[in-house]
């Protein structure tokens, strides 16, 4: 039931916000992109060709921010619960395990979305301060952010929770979740340096699509509404599929015994 999922989400959010160190590290991860781009923009003195690379970098960092915002809570909320042996008493409650997972997913998604929002605010500040001249198709950019980017934290949260259910301890989860951050990073970098490799269908592919649409919108291109919508829907659908798999993993005996 959604009520119970909300109870779980509320507890996870309260619990995670009290982990001040984790909150601070997530914050630094989120503003890492604006800081790096800000520093590089000072050295390029706003030259147009280099601004193009910077825009690509910004898009990559924004994708990464959606993945790092919820990373700490994702590893703590399942692998951490297993390690501290609090998952077993939690599973004794009359709550369907899929509802439990949805609650945790809502909380992780919120943190991931917060990471994304802080990153975007950071970029807005950097752009104003650096005097970079970007064409910027702002209405389309806003549309891409709202319809294409907003589902990304949902996907990141699902993927991270799935990995967290496979891991037995926070340390193990940390290793794999850090690797997962390379997924948007390497894909994004690849597309920045080999833009010709991006086929039209890549623009609706979760992750690649966000990177390409975001970059194009910042550079001033028009993005068809349908393209953004398809990208958003595919991202949400993939997030649900992965969440379902993660929920199913909670049904297994290994989750109790940690083998």
């Amino acid at each position, binding site marked *: 039931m959604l009520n119970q999922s909300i109870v*779980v989400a509320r507890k996870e959010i309260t619990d995670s916000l009290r*982990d001040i160190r984790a909150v601070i590290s997530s914050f630094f991860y989120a503003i890492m992109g604006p800081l790096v781009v800000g520093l590089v923009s000072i050295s390029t003195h706003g030259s147009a060709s280099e601004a193009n690379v910077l825009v690509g970098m910004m898009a990559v960092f924004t994708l990464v921010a959606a993945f790092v915002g919820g990373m700490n809570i994702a590893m703590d909320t399942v692998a951490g619960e297993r390690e501290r*042996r609090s*998952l077993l*008493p939690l599973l004794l409650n009359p709550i369907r395990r899929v509802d439990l997972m949805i609650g945790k997913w809502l909380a992780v998604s919120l943190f991931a979305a917060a990471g994304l929002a802080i990153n975007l605010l950071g970029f807005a500040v950097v752009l104003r301060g650096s005097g970079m001249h970007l064409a910027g198709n702002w209405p389309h950019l806003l549309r891409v952010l709202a319809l294409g980017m907003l589902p990304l934290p949902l996907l990141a949260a699902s993927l991270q929770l799935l990995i967290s259910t496979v891991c037995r301890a926070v340390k193990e989860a940390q290793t794999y979740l850090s690797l997962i951050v390379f997924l948007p990073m390497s894909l994004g970098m690849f597309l920045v340096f080999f833009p010709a490799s991006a086929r039209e269908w890549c623009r609706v592919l979760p992750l690649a699509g966000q990177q390409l649409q975001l970059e194009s919108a910042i550079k001033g291109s028009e993005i068809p509404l349908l393209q953004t919508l398809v990208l958003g829907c595919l991202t949400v659908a993939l997030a649900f599929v992965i969440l379902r798999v993660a929920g199913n993993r909670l049904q297994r*005996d290994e989750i109790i015994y940690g083998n």
Partner: protein
Amino acid sequence: MIQIQNLRKSFGHRAVVQDLSFNAPDGAITGLLGANGAGKSTTLRMICGVLTPDSGSIQIGRLGALLDHAGIYSRLTVRENLTYFGELQGIPRKQLDDRVDEVISTLGLDSIAGTRTVGFSQGERMKTALGRAILHSPQNLLLDEPTNGLDVPTIRSLRELLRRLRDLGQCILFSSHVLDEVRALCDKVVVISNGRLVAEGSPADLCSQTGTSSLEEAFVALTC
């Protein structure tokens, strides 16, 4: 009342519980006794529903449980820990605060109720976990080696609490390998060895069945 019939559970090729049947009646404290690895915790986990048996049946009403580790949230206070579980148990919000206060005072946790549980002693953690288990007034209470790591005053207050709950008509099933504990507390003992039932009855019954004078000797005669 807990009724278990022909319960089986294997992990891979290893049969942990084999054709186990027993009852734990209402208004009694039943001890599940067995050596390390006899299948006590696995049985309790199946009764709780966190592990699915390979076959067999379990009949049980409303259940509260405290399994091997306290597993409480260190960044939440005692009250928040209890409230979270109360909400998940579906206790209506209006009654929940009163019930949490009642449990806190029953367990003598008043002075630390508003404190985050990080750094709590083993006894304080165990009491918080016990509070969580009895919060929704379950008819059946399952405890897996509840006295592990507790000091004498805490063990005594736990015993008193369990007797009080039994006198209220609740069914209490707890596992232990501490024979003194079982003798002091249990009305009925179920002895398992290698996942099988080897004896059932009051501590005195077991002694007379085996022709021994102490529960320890009876246990050795039954399981070794």
